[in-house]
Each structure stands twice: as structure tokens, then as C-alpha cells.
């Protein structure tokens, strides 16, 4: 499997965010995307999973494991949590497990130690617990590409450590991880992409 970006350029609200962005990641490689606020990290991740079209260039996936779109091979963890506050933790996880198709609910609950909170109403969780719930989607079904947008927001040290372990496992299993983050993540990133360098010279 090989994920390749070719001369990507992105424009939002009439401003050129970056241009000439290139990278190639093969299975087992992880990329950390950095850059100042508003540089376009989120936009890049959204381009990869197909929500935004780049103004120029394109994303290609070679040797894809299944015949489907890139988006359908991605786990995308956005800033938003996609949690229903009226459902319990377990119900939230179960829904995504069923939606993604035969996901493993128990694995999801165990991924960030949410087991004891399973019967708890998701609306009452603390900020970090919500983030854990969001991240536990990663372990529900196996998808080749993980796109993580500031995954560590609000996580305590233990949870951050767990996240990094999951990333490492995923890489070891031949997956690809692309994470945008301002904080230091302990995962074995092979590439670091600083978007600031690719901006068209504007703030």
C-alpha cells in the first residue's frame, strides 16, 4: 500500500494555504503534520479523506487492500467528537461498531479503558473522557489509514501513552498514520511535514 500526494495545493476562503505539497507514505510509516494555527493541517487531512477537493494536485493510493475509495479506508478523528450525549458510552461505541460493519465493541471499550464508564451517559463525561470515546473508534474495525487531527487534546498522560501504543501497533501491522498535532506525541513518526514552509508567504 502506498499513499501519495502530488503537488497538492489548497485554497480556503480565497486564500492559498499551501502549495506544492508532496509526500509518499508506504504501509508502516507515520507522518506528523505541524504548522502554526491556520496553516492548513486540518484542511490537508480533509483533502486526504476526500471531503475537500484540492485546487491542484491529487492524492493517490496504490495497491489498495480493498476496492473502495480512500475515504472508506480511513479512520478520521476530527476536532469534533461525534458523540451523542443522550446515549451511554457503550451505546455510542456500539453504533459506530455496527455502522462500520461488525466492529468489536469490547475492543473499543478496552482501547482506552472506558470499560468502567460503559453504562455512563456520554453527555456527562469530562472533556478528556469524551476524547477517549472518540478515539476508541480506531479500534472498532481495522482500517488501513488513520487520520488524526490533534488526537491528544485533553488526554491525560496515561491516555496519551495508550494512544501512542495503538499507533505503534497499527504501524507494525502495516497501516499508515497521519497525525496533526501541536503537542509532542511519542509515536514513531518517520516523516515530519511542516506546512508553514509550503505556505504562499501569507499569514
Amino acid at each position, binding site marked *: 500500500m502506498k499513499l501519495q500526494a502530488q503537488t497538492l495545493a489548497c485554497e480556503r476562503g480565497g486564500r492559498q494555504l499551501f502549495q506544492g505539497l508532496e509526500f509518499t507514505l508506504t504501509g508502516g510509516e507515520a507522518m506528523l503534520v505541524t504548522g502554526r494555527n491556520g496553516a492548513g493541517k486540518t484542511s490537508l487531512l480533509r483533502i486526504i479523506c476526500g471531503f*475537500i477537493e484540492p485546487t491542484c494536485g491529487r492524492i493517490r493510493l496504490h495497491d489498495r487492500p480493498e476496492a473502495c475509495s480512500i475515504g472508506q479506508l480511513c479512520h*478520521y478523528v*476530527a476536532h469534533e467528537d*461525534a458523540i*451523542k450525549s443522550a446515549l451511554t458510552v457503550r451505546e455510542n461505541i456500539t*453504533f459506530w461498531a*455496527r*455502522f*462500520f460493519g461488525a466492529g468489536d465493541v469490547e475492543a473499543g471499550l478496552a482501547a482506552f479503558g472506558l470499560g468502567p464508564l460503559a453504562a455512563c451517559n456520554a453527555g456527562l463525561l469530562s472533556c478528556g473522557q469524551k476524547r477517549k470515546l472518540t478515539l476508541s473508534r480506531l479500534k472498532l474495525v481495522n482500517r488501513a489509514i488513520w487520520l488524526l487531527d490533534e488526537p491528544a487534546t485533553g488526554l491525560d498522560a496515561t491516555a496519551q501513552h495508550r494512544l501512542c501504543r495503538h499507533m505503534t501497533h497499527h504501524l507494525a501491522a502495516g497501516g499508515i498514520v497521519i497525525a496533526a498535532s501541536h503537542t509532542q506525541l511519542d509515536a514513531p513518526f518517520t516523516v515530519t511535514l511542516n506546512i508553514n514552509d509550503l505556505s504562499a508567504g501569507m499569514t
Partner: protein
Amino acid sequence: MFTAIIARDIRLILRQGGGAGMSLGFVLTVIVMIPLGIGPDHEVLSQIAPGIMWIALLLSVLLSADRIFRADYEDGSLELMGLGVLPLELVVLAKAVVHWLTSALPLSLTTPLFGIFLNLDPSLFSTLGLAMITGSATLSLMGCVGGAVTLGLRRGGLVISILILPLYVPILVFGLSASVGSMGADHVFNTSFLMLIAFALASVVLCPVAAAGILRAHFR
């Protein structure tokens, strides 16, 4: 996956006291206010009852359409559903089914109850209920299109009503004639009813496609 969405949404709606409850509450309000507003005269009430029931149904569907996708859009769930194996069109269809099950169907089923309060002719209970069930399927599906359009705006009220109103008017006209038709010539009931069914079938195909297209535009 289709059923996963339906199961979750129904559970959500039951738990949050929305959906069925909401439209029943709305219709209840209308039914209480009508006699207060236009006088408790039995004759008049019984005459306008089918019309009022239909208008209440249309309004309640219209008003809840705005919320079909709103919550999922705002918390990012909708986007994620766009990455699922299930085509977005089917996601829309599932949402429409839930909307219909929870807001239009309960209303149609409770017609007799509300009818009593408005002194509705009991012989109309079944035809009115049946016509409402059929007609409301179309209303829910069209509501999805309207709901998708107004996602960008926080209060799409005016937009949605102006957009959808023209679509709803035919349903109102045929639905009404299907409901009260049995009083007069019998064939009217049949023709109008067949029209309602035709509308429903057409929208099952067209509306999800339209709504899914609009939703994709919102993901940008």
C-alpha cells in the same frame, strides 16, 4: 448498517423526548387552539377537521425537517457516515425512515383520538389515517432535502418553509381529496390515493439522491 442508523436514531429520539412526542405535542397544541380560536361550534369544527389535521401534519413535518441532519452535522457524525461503506444516499433514506416513523406515523395513527376532540366524522377515521400515512412518507422524504439545504444556516426556518412549501402543496391537495373523497364519489378517493402512492414512490428514488448530493457539498 442501515438498521444501525435507524436503531440509534429511534433510541435517541425516544430518549430526548423529541420526534413523535414533539409532533404529537404540536398537533395537540393546534387542536386545543383551534376551538379556542375559531369557536367551539360543533358543525364548523367537524367541517374543517380534516383540513386542520392535514395542515397540522404538514406543519409538524415541515418544522421538524430542519432537525433531521442538524445534530449529526454539528457533532461531526454525518461526516463520518460519509466515510462509511454505506452510500450516503442510504444514510439519507434511513434518516427519512426514522423521521417518518417518529413524526408522521404516530400522528396518522392517533388521528381518531385527535379527531374526537375536533368532532371529526368517525367514518373518515380510516381513510384520513391511511391517506396521511401514505402522504407523510413523501413529506418526510422531501423534508430530508429541505433539511439538507438548511444545514449551513442556524435557523433555516424561512428558507425551509419557502423551499418546501411548493413541494408540499400537491400532497396537501391530493391527500385531502383522498381523505374526504369517500364521502362523495368513490373514484376520487382512488385516484387521489393512487397519486399519493405515486408521489411516495417517486420521492423514495429521487429525494435521497438529491439530499445526499447537497450533504456532500456541506462537508467542505
